[in-house]
């Protein structure tokens, strides 16, 4: 099932399938690109960031970024 990264549930795993073009470079330095597997570990309330695990390492994404990354959940 496809959903936005910001809509993932706790501990849900998925594979990145789409990133807004103008965002691709911005998140590449954080290890996020199409084809990457990730796991959502924390979501902060009140429009706070989304934390994911990519390659065994934690990364925190602002909600406005997480809204524009599409993930195919396992």
């Amino acid at each position, binding site marked *: 099932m496809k959903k936005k990264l910001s809509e993932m549930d706790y501990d849900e795993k998925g594979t990145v399938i789409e990133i807004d073009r103008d965002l691709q*470079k*911005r998140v*590449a*330095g*954080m*290890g996020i690109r199409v084809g990457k597997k990730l796991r959502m570990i924390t979501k902060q309330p009140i429009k706070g960031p989304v934390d994911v695990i990519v*390659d*065994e*390492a934690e990364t925190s994404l602002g909600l406005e970024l997480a809204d524009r990354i599409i993930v195919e959940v396992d």
Partner: protein
Amino acid sequence: MKVLLMGHPNVGKSVFFNRLTGANVTESNYPGTTVDYTKGWMKIEGEDVELVDVPGTFSLDPKDKAEDVAVAMLHETKDAKVITVIDASKIERGLYLALEIIEEGYPVVIALNMWDVAWDKNIRIDARNLEKILGVPVVPTTAISGEGIKELVSRLKSAKPVEVDDIIANAGGLT
């Protein structure tokens, strides 16, 4: 010679810096900002070498003030050699930055730091093969204990600019 220490935040750049320079260090703000950086001197085979501890950055597309400074420092020292410090347990994103620096034509040496942490996490990296593919020296290090630092320094002189097209060819093309 001028050498820049670059890498993500919290990968051990400053530990390298302290190990390499010792006490003779000045700390200053980058003009017009409150982002501070340190520079110091070391000797390699009798030659005085200036070493700069550049603020951590994830990429060369700056997203905040510290990253602005990091990128500006790189761009204003065109003749510098760059030690790119990578957290070996998070190698992919580290390589992204290293490749960006290589792409701009700087002679780069890669320090696969926190080698011990990566080892504990069961992450095994074929540093020799990586070196073959990238064409730049790749040295496993554990800056905290000092492991690999001597080798890293001795390989600085063999750092030279590499064409990204060659790296792509060595890696077997784009997938």
